[in-house]
């Protein structure tokens, strides 16, 4: 049965105080007191791995998963707002998702695995801001917004301003993300998503998402540069797509890593960028 203390000491994460919060008010006052030495734990599907590998060693971990007020999804005329503890699987099973955001419905199965989506939150994935994860890419592509709370109230910033680099965001140490918003698109749109990964559910080597309406076309690329990159086109550009994609691919600050070279990633953007865009456009013709 129970083993010796010495064995229990061999723990993966470095020691930290754990605070199980019951309200947003408690969280923001704790963040203010701890001045940058605290981490927010919601679903933990990114943070727990970082803690286990000791890539982060906070003095305080604030568990927000029991704050009931943050476990919501609401729909207004302008946007769909998702609370900080709303899981990816809850979004996947949200009855209106297919009708309002078919692109999110088609992307979610690629976000981690069945077991990680059961616990991982939509907001958490955005906060982690991994260059190759799908949800930050969609938030940028769809012109989403991030709601940040602190003791002085809330502020709302665009996804573009929120994602500042690899694993870094504009979230200050005294505030945390309480919700994200996906704007509802007025016009009917076509969409497409293609991902290259070693295994289904793994981080993307390159992820491409496109939306197209009658007068504007957008391609979002994840996994290549430090943050999602967006290419905006007009329907007229479709006749010379390969040039536009080539310029776009060169403009990306592509990275080499163990999985693929920068050159390979740029080539994927050129080749699959074209098929992703055409697929999205064909849906509205």
């Amino acid at each position: 049965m129970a083993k010796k203390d010495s064995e229990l000491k061999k723990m993966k994460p470095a020691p930290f105080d754990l605070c199980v919060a019951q309200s947003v008010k408690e969280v923001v006052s704790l963040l203010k007191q701890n001045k940058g030495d605290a981490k927010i734990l919601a679903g933990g599907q990114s943070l727990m791995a970082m803690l286990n590998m000791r890539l982060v060693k906070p003095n305080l971990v604030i568990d927000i998963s029991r704050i009931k007020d943050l476990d919501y999804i609401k729909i207004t005329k302008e946007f769909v707002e998702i609370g900080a503890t709303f899981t990816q699987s809850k979004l996947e099973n949200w009855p209106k998702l297919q009708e309002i955001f078919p692109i999110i419905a088609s992307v979610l199965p690629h976000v981690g695995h069945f077991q990680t989506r059961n616990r991982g939150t939509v907001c958490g994935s955005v906060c982690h801001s991994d260059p190759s994860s799908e949800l930050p890419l969609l938030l940028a592509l769809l012109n989403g917004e991030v709601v940040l709370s602190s003791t002085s109230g809330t502020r709302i910033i665009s996804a573009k301003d929120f994602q500042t680099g690899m694993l870094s965001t504009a979230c200050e140490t005294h505030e945390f993300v309480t919700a994200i918003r996906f704007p509802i698109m007025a016009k009917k749109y076509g969409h497409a998503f293609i991902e290259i990964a070693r295994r289904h559910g793994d981080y993307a080597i390159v992820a491409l998402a496109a939306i197209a309406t009658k007068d504007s076309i957008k391609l979002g690329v994840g996994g290549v540069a430090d943050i999602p990159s967006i290419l905006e086109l007009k329907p007229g550009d479709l006749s010379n797509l390969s040039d536009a994609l080539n310029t776009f691919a060169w403009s990306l600050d592509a990275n080499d890593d163990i999985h693929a070279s920068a050159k390979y990633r740029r080539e994927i953007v050129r080749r699959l960028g074209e098929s992703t865009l055409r697929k999205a456009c064909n849906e509205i013709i």
Partner: protein
Amino acid sequence: MKLFKQSAKHSIKFFLNGNQVEGFAEPNLLLSDFLRKEIGATGTHVGCEHGICGACTVKLDGEAIRACLCLAIQVEGRDVVTIEGLADTEGSLGIIQKAFHENFALQCGFCTPGFLTTLDHYLKINPTPTEKELREVYSGNMCRCTGYDEIIRASLEAANELLKIKTLNLK
């Protein structure tokens, strides 16, 4: 608000396979290590310890999750089901376990608890899965012995068996 100080042990009461149990955990103790080392329930296996391999999958309030990406303290008052909880009440193999046994769906058995707990949750959401759906769900579990074909066959058989029992009960 509840604060759990580091380097101190805190009492955790939760339900393990239907029975209330108590254990003691420091804030940085993972659920997987807590179950194995503190509670002594060694059926849950620990592989990669950062959410990739799926061996440590358990059910938390009915949902399949990674025990290595969950803190022991987070299960306070909650319902945890491990591979031990999938056996019949008399201790013989449960339907899913039996299907895996009969279809040679395990060899070394290291990954098996994760596959079984995942399937146990998934069949409750989707009682009639296709092979494609199962392969997608199992993308979160790694097996290095079987080549997965037997696991898929066993899972389809388990789904059929469970459906048969359900229809019998309805009659």
